[in-house]
């Protein structure tokens, strides 16, 4: 577990260094994820240890959002002032993006040989 955690941190560190060094707009951990993905493709899969540790962390992904989420208390005033645009934008945009994605993939996957044909 410690070995796997070290590996994740090393990839994050390299990602952060690249993001700062090359002044990339992508967050460091995302670059780390991309690099790890590339490494997994090259090595044809993660070790059992890495898979176990990753599953353990990702199972409790919701826990990691809580400290930042609690920061909502810093924004009560803003939310009270801007609740209408924020609420309308959230609801409309979420449902619209689900509809657009579903309709497009539905149409595209019908026309390709790999797609699943549904009557």
């Amino acid at each position, binding site marked *: 577990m410690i070995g796997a*955690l070290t590996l994740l*941190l090393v990839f*994050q560190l390299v*990602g952060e260094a690249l993001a700062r060094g090359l002044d990339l*707009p*992508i*967050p460091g*951990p995302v670059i780390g*994820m991309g690099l*790890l*993905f590339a490494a*997994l*493709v090259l090595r044809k899969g*993660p070790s059992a240890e*890495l898979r176990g540790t*990753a*599953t353990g*962390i*990702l199972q409790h*992904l*919701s*826990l990691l*959002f*809580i*400290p*930042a*989420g*609690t*920061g*909502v*208390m*810093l*924004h009560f005033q*803003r939310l009270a002032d801007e609740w*209408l*645009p*924020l609420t*309308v*934008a*959230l*609801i409309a*945009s*979420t*449902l*619209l*993006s*689900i*509809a*657009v*994605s*579903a*309709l*497009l*993939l*539905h149409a*595209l*996957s019908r026309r390709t040989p*790999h*797609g699943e044909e*549904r009557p």
Partner: protein
Amino acid sequence: MNPALGEIWVYLSTTPLLGLTLTLLAYQGALWLYRRANHHPLLNPVMVAVTVLVLVLTLTGTPYQTYFDGAQFVHFLLGPATVALAIPLYAQWERLKGMLLPLLLTLVAGSLTAALSAVGIAALLGASRESVMSMAPKSVTMPIAMGVAERLGGLPSLTAVLVMSTGILGAVGARYVYRLLRIEDHAVRGFAIGIASHGIGTARAFQVSEQAGAFAALAMGLNGLLTAAMLPWILPWLESLLH
């Protein structure tokens, strides 16, 4: 509070231990409730735990910064967790190579729709610039969304709230959209909810079927990468067009 208890409180409230323990306790409690309620989307554990913590901090008059001094140890793990997303992504790789082009085209269209419609509607209805920028990455998994918001000049902690709301909205609302549009393919259903509402939508898709869940996880990962790469270029450009 009697004087002795008061002294203990004063001591504890200044150490990181309290914030850290409170976070874990709130999470355990919220998780218990969520399981008891059969994974009802409106009892999302993040939302419940955050509500409890905000109440406790407000009632005890504890500043957020004092709490965060302890909770930052949990927060820090978002970085390695983001890197770890490469592993489920790899697990879907073989299966998805075959329909890569339709998936990628859908990803670009869905990702742009999610970000631009949110930004457009919020701006039209008069939200402040900081709020609009915090809104832009709302459909992306939280660690990535917070990083992108920071890059754009939004407020990462506000983004966290918006991301969470988006996830819950998608998990609750997707079934009505699919019914209306007569979308039945689980791969399509999963991929669309993964683009629009990240991990919370993915969790919901896994309840529907394994296939829906796998496609949702892929969409969530790819949308994270795409949004992180795309928004910091597109939004400043859009802003310069508008002004």
